[in-house]
């Protein structure tokens, strides 16, 4: 399988912080036109994995590529293929929305007219009309999140990594964001969607990888995962059963 067919490829990613193993030999692929859910309890290694994909952290061993570009070999080129949005990607409080988008557009070496065109387009899609002229510090949580999404997709990247994008959003805003992500998938993007809301993942994701203590516990479609856990009624139920099965297994470290 050539990496070019994939949006994202992770091969044997491992990350150690001192003696602590945060991510342990993790491999998965995300195709273009697919939403891949990366789920797991706190401390499962989700954030570390996503940071390694974005070339923010260097893996202890293993490799990753985004849209066929090896992350370790050419981090800048890999990041150009990537839209990265996490709970800790804040906005510059003292810049206006428009200035912020222009700054990141230029960092991506976009031509000025392309920045203007994309900004106008996203302003329509993400309902940013009223907020582009305001400073980011003056925006509400929902407005900030929409502006963050615009920041992440401004350069029309092939790969989207969205870590907890709906945290702090109300029902309507979350719904709106999910629709946007689906639309991006349908435009051929490879999307990694990480969340604690299992119900949300079930609604949105085409495939799901369950992380537990840095390892891939199970990987399947939402329906497939429920079936594996003995026809659990929901993904949450399936997840609880899978983790319980793991800890009951004496072969596995406590």
């Amino acid at each position: 399988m050539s990496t070019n067919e994939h949006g994202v490829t992770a091969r044997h990613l491992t990350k150690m912080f001192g003696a602590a193993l945060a991510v342990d030999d993790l491999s998965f692929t995300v195709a273009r036109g697919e939403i891949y859910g990366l789920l797991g309890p706190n401390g499962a290694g989700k954030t570390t994995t996503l940071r390694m994909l974005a070339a923010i952290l260097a893996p202890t061993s293993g490799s990753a590529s985004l849209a066929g570009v090896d992350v370790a070999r050419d981090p800048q080129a890999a990041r150009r293929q990537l839209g990265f949005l996490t709970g800790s990607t804040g906005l510059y409080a003292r810049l206006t929305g428009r200035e912020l988008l222009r700054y990141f557009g230029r960092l991506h070496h976009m031509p000025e007219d392309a920045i203007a065109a994309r900004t106008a387009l996203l302003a329509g899609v993400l309902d940013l009309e009223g907020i582009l002229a305001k400073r980011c510090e003056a925006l509400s949580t929902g407005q900030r999140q929409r502006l963050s999404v615009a920041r992440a997709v401004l350069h029309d990247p092939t790969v989207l990594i969205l870590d907890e994008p709906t945290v702090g959003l109300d029902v309507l805003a979350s719904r709106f964001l999910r629709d946007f992500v689906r639309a991006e998938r349908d435009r051929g993007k490879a999307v990694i969607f990480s969340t604690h809301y299992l119900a949300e993942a079930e609604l949105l994701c085409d495939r799901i990888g369950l992380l537990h203590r840095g390892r891939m516990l199970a990987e399947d479609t939402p329906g497939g995962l429920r079936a594996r856990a003995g026809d659990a009624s929901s993904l949450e139920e399936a997840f609880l059963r899978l983790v319980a099965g793991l800890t009951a297994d004496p072969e596995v470290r406590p």
Partner: protein
Amino acid sequence: MKLRDVALVAGKELRETLRDRRTLTVMVLFPLVVYPLVSLLMAQVMASHAARGEARRSRVTVVGPVSVTESVRARLAADKSFAADVLAWDARANTTSDRASVEAGAVDAVVEVTPGAHGATRVRVVWDEARDESRQAHDRVGGALAGALAPGCGPLFTLEDDSVAPRARVGGYVLSKLLPLIVVVMIMLGAFYPAIDITAGERERGTLETILSAPVSRFDLMTGKVIAVATLSTVTGLLNMTSMSLTMVQGIHLVGGAASVTIPWTRAASTLIVVIPAAFLFASVMVAIGAMARSFKEAQTLLTPVYFLCFTPSLIAGLGDWDLAGAAAVVPGVNVTLLARDLILGTATLGRTLVVVASTLACGALALTLAARLYDSERLLAADDGTVGLGAWLRRLLGVGEARAAAPTAANRATPGQALALFGVAFVLMVGVFVPLQKWRLATGLAISQWVGLLGIVVVYARGTGRPLAEVLRVRRVPARAVLGALLVGASAWIVVGVLAQWLVPAPPELEESKRRFVVPADGSRGLVLSLALIALTPAVCEEALFRGAILRGLAAGLPRITAAVITGLLFGLFHLDLWRLLPTAMLGIALSLIALETDSILPSMLAHFTNNACLVILGYLGRDRSVDELGKPAQVAFLGVGLVVVLLGAACLRGTGRKATDL
């Protein structure tokens, strides 16, 4: 008000604050260790500088008819502060040529003597108000002549002043005393908050990860940040410079001296050459420090001492009238302050200006590279996990491989923190107790400080951590090869260290002399054996126990070996509280640390320390301890060469012996 609640809150806040290691470091380590250390070293620099100024002889020409100049010449000749050979005598008073020779700096002052009314001789001192040597000569002539009374109780001389300096030069002189220091300090202050804001502030506001995920290299990112900070601090520096100059003019008007001073604006503006590289340097340093911090508060805590350390060299440079030459031209902070002064005085040369600018930019570039590396650090992002310790982070910073898996930490293991705390305690005792003790009775005081003080600290530490003393010190049996190696290093290290120190930081002769008198008391009150016990054996046991025992082992538990050895050596050098001995003792300390680590035992380093000191004592008693200075360059090079060969031989013997060391 409920006292119980107040106490509860106070207790919790104290507990939380004290758990912040950095707060503790700044609260305890700085007042107790860094400030005394810096002020002591600064005092030594200033004292030696002042002594040199005092020792300088003024070059003065006395002119006038023999009948009246004779008494003036006699008085000046009696005063040892005038250079005798230039107490020239010239019958013709020619004010134009006198002024020219003072202006050109050929002499420091010309004393024109003419007969005056009422028996008093008229003395006109031609001097240059804008030159320190000339001011000194002027004051000395005044001091030598002013008090003299004629038999009739009238003054013997009437003194007149004639300064050759034009108004702009006087203005420049006054400005040169104030402006450089203030401008350099203001540039630093101008960099302080922006540097924190764009590094630690960025992290705190949650935009760090946003920018790290953008396709921009770390180095470009940091360069952009440093340029922004440098711009802000340049503006701060310029505004201060302008405002200072204007204030000075106003101030002089206010005190009524309007006619005497003007500001040399062109020269003041030429200090821009300094402002920009200095702003770049301080911006890079502060951004590098800020990049280490995880929060605004941590950055402030880290930067305050750095600010202090940056400020000290500028202060020293600003206070003394140093020459911008030799090492001073490449010491960051010192060089920019001195160059700014020379630019205002109009005495800067192109070559020196280039050296200063280039070395400042080079230091800035180094700090910038460091900043880029630090900003890349996992510690910034992984801090939330709390798993990346300072030790692992330091290893990463220094590029010594991947962070190794830390050994399981039992409660009673040595740590770098303990090592630094031990040094802190020893240092405070040194300043507060040992130094006064040794002032009281040199030999007795030294023996008490070492055997009771230093060894006592180690014993108390071992008991406190519940470990046997032999284990804390690592007293282990070593193969004969290691003993031979230690002997060879000890027998040659003092030559290498002595020659290098003489080349790099030559100590003033009076210090050399007092050191000699300490080793061999002039009154013969101490014999060779006693001196060997006091000066060789005592430090070999006690200083080694503390530095190569407890401190080195603590540092080595969390840091790479070389780093631990270098830090131990530097602490050892600082501990001696002597600027001139800082470099030699630090070099020796590093060598001894490497011996202790390589042999995995403290005994060889004790032996090497003893041999080193014993060589110096024996030479002293043989009367062959002339300072290296008197040897001449070829002999120095030869000694250094032979010394190095023997040191290397010793090192070869020591190599790998640690594996064969066994517990006693």
